[in-house]
C-alpha cells in the first residue's frame, strides 16, 4: 500500500500485538463483576485496532467488497443487538456465534478454491488447517442455528431422538474425516463441498437430541468451536491476530462449558449423549404422581398468605422472563416490604435460559442487588421462610433432584423451596418444565398452584395485597 512492504507488515504485527494484549485484558476484566463492562470495551478496542491495521495488509488490493460486507454486517448486527429483548439474549448469542463459525467455513472454502488450481501450492499444514476450519466452522454454524430454533421455540425444545442416532452420528463424523482426507489429498473441489455439506448436516444432527435445558452448555461449546475454527483460519492465512483471538476463545470457551455443566452437576458427555428429558419421567418410583392432584389457589387467598407472612422468598424462573414480569414482581415485592414483609430473591445458577440470565433480567427491573441471593446462601433460609413464591421456575425446584435416583434431574443442586412452610407456584399450566420432567413439588400438601400468565397473576396478587 502507501507504506513500503516490510514496514507495513511490521506496523501491522505491532498493532496485532497491542490488539492481542487488549483482548486478553478484556477477557480478564470480563471475569469480575466490577470490571466486566469496561472489559468488554477494552476487548472491542483491541478488535478495532486489529481490524483497522489489517486494512494496511499488502495482500489487500481491493476495498469495495470489504466495505460493502462490513456495512451490511454492521447494520444487521447493530440492529439485532439493539432490538433483541433481554429474554431472547441466549438465542441471539447463538446466532452471532453461528455466523462467526459460518465465516470461518467460508474463508476455508474460498482459500481451498484459490489455492487448488495450482497443484503443489497448498503446503500440507495449511491444507490441514483449511479442512479443520471448514469442518468445525460448518458444525458451529448449523448447530447454532438449531440451538437458536430450539430456544426461539421455532421447533420443539425437547430432545429429538430416533433409533441408532448416536451410531449414525458417529458414522457421519467418520465419513466427514474421510471426505476431508480425500479433499486434502486430491484437491478436488467436489470433496470439499461434500465435507462442507456433511459438516452442516452433522451440526444439525448433533444438536437435535439435546434438550432445551442444556442449550446454554451447547451454545458455550459451539462458541469454543467457533473460536478454534477462527484460530485455524489464522494458520491458513498465517495471521497471529487470528490465532491468538481464536485460541483464547477456544480455550476459555471450553473451560466455561465445563464450568456451566458443573453448575448443573452434569458432565459434558452426559449433556451431549443422554438426550436429557426425552422421556417424561414420573415422580419417585412407587409414588407415581399420576393419582395425585395439585391444589389450586385463587389470587386473593395467595395474596393474604403473602401479606401476612414474615418472610417471603421469591423464586424466579424462565416463566417470569417470558411473561416480562420482572418489573411487576419488583412492584409486588416493594408492596410487601412496605407491609413489613422480609422479601428475598433466590437465584438458581441456571435460572432462566443461561447461567446469570436471571440476574440480568432482575437488574433490568431495578431489583436491589442485596436482595438477590445465590442458591448456597438462600437454601438454609427456606426452613424459616413462610411463603416461597415460585414464579415460572420448575426444574430448579424439583425435589426429585434430591430424592429420586431415577430422575434425570437427580444430583442437580436445587432450591429447597419444599422446606418452606408454604409454597405458592405461579405457572401457566401443569405441563412439565424445559427438562420435560414432572415436578412432584406441585403435589406436595404445602403447595398451592396459581395458574395463569406470570405477569397477569402477579398483577392480580398486587391488587389483592393492596386490598388485604
Amino acid at each position, binding site marked *: 500500500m502507501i507504506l513500503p512492504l516490510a514496514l507495513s507488515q511490521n506496523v501491522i504485527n505491532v498493532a496485532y500485538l497491542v490488539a492481542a494484549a487488549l483482548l*486478553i485484558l478484556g*477477557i480478564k476484566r*470480563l471475569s469480575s463483576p*466490577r470490571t*466486566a*463492562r469496561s472489559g*468488554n470495551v477494552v*476487548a472491542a478496542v483491541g*478488535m478495532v485496532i486489529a*481490524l483497522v491495521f489489517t*486494512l494496511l*495488509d499488502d495482500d*489487500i*488490493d*481491493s*476495498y469495495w*467488497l*470489504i466495505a*460493502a*460486507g*462490513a456495512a451490511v*454486517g454492521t447494520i444487521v*448486527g*447493530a440492529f439485532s*443487538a439493539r432490538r*433483541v429483548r433481554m429474554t431472547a439474549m441466549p438465542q*441471539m*448469542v447463538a446466532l*452471532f*456465534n453461528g455466523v*462467526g463459525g*459460518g*465465516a470461518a467455513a*467460508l474463508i476455508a472454502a*474460498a482459500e481451498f*478454491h*484459490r489455492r487448488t488450481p495450482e497443484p503443489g501450492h497448498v503446503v500440507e*499444514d495449511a491444507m490441514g488447517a483449511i479442512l479443520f476450519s471448514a469442518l468445525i466452522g460448518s458444525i458451529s454454524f448449523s448447530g447454532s442455528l438449531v440451538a437458536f430454533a430450539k430456544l426461539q421455540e421455532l421447533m420443539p425444545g425437547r430432545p429429538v431422538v430416533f433409533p441408532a442416532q448416536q451410531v449414525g452420528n458417529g458414522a457421519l463424523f467418520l465419513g466427514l474425516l474421510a471426505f476431508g482426507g480425500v479433499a486434502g489429498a486430491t484437491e478436488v473441489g467436489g470433496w470439499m463441498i461434500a465435507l462442507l455439506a456433511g459438516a452442516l448436516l452433522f451440526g444439525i444432527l448433533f444438536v437435535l437430541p439435546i434438550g432445551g435445558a442444556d442449550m446454554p452448555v451447547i451454545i458455550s461449546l459451539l*462458541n469454543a468451536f*467457533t473460536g478454534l475454527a*477462527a484460530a485455524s*483460519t*489464522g*494458520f*491458513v492465512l498465517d*495471521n497471529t*491476530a487470528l490465532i491468538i*483471538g481464536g485460541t*483464547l*476463545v477456544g*480455550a*476459555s470457551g471450553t*473451560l*466455561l462449558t465445563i464450568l456451566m455443566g458443573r453448575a448443573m452437576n452434569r458432565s459434558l458427555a452426559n449433556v451431549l449423549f443422554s438426550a436429557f428429558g426425552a422421556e417424561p419421567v414420573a415422580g419417585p418410583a412407587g409414588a407415581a404422581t399420576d393419582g395425585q392432584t395439585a391444589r389450586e389457589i385463587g389470587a386473593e387467598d395467595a395474596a393474604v398468605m403473602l401479606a401476612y407472612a414474615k418472610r417471603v422468598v421469591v423464586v424466579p424462573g424462565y416463566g417470569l422472563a417470558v411473561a416480562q414480569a420482572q418489573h411487576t414482581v419488583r412492584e409486588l415485592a416493594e408492596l410487601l416490604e412496605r407491609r413489613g414483609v422480609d422479601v428475598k430473591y433466590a437465584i438458581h445458577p441456571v435460572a432462566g435460559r*443461561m*447461567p*446469570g440470565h436471571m*440476574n*440480568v433480567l432482575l*437488574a433490568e427491573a431495578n431489583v436491589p442487588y442485596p436482595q438477590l441471593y445465590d442458591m448456597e446462601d438462600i437454601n438454609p433460609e427456606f426452613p424459616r421462610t413462610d411463603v416461597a413464591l415460585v414464579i415460572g421456575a420448575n426444574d430448579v425446584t424439583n425435589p426429585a433432584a434430591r430424592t429420586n435416583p431415577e430422575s434425570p434431574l437427580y444430583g442437580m443442586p436445587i432450591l429447597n423451596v419444599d422446606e418452606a412452610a408454604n409454597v405458592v407456584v405461579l405457572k401457566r399450566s401443569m405441563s412439565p418444565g424445559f427438562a420435560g420432567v414432572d415436578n412432584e413439588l406441585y403435589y406436595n400438601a404445602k403447595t398451592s398452584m396459581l395458574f395463569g400468565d406470570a405477569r397477569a397473576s402477579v398483577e392480580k396478587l398486587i391488587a389483592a395485597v393492596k386490598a388485604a
Partner: protein
Amino acid sequence: MSLLTSVTIFVLAVFLGFELISRVPTLLHTPLMSGTNAIHGIVLVGAMLIAGSADSTLEQVLAFVAVVFATINVVGGFLVTDRMLEMFKRRE
C-alpha cells in the same frame, strides 16, 4: 512465520485462555460467553484478507458473505454484551 512459531503462539494462548477465566462467578457466565463470542469475531480479519484479494467470482461471493457474517459477529457480539453488562453497572 514458521509453523513452529504459530504452534508456539497457539499453545501459549490455550494455557492463557484457561487461566484467564478459571475463577469466574456464575453470575458472569452469560456475559462472559457473550463477550468471548464477540472476540472470535476476529475471524473478520481473515474475511477481510480474502475479500481484499479474491479474484474469481466464486471467491468474491464467499468472501463477501464471510465479511457480512463476521461483521455481524463482531458488532452484534460486543453490543449485546454491553447491554447485558449495563444491567449490572446500575446496581453498584
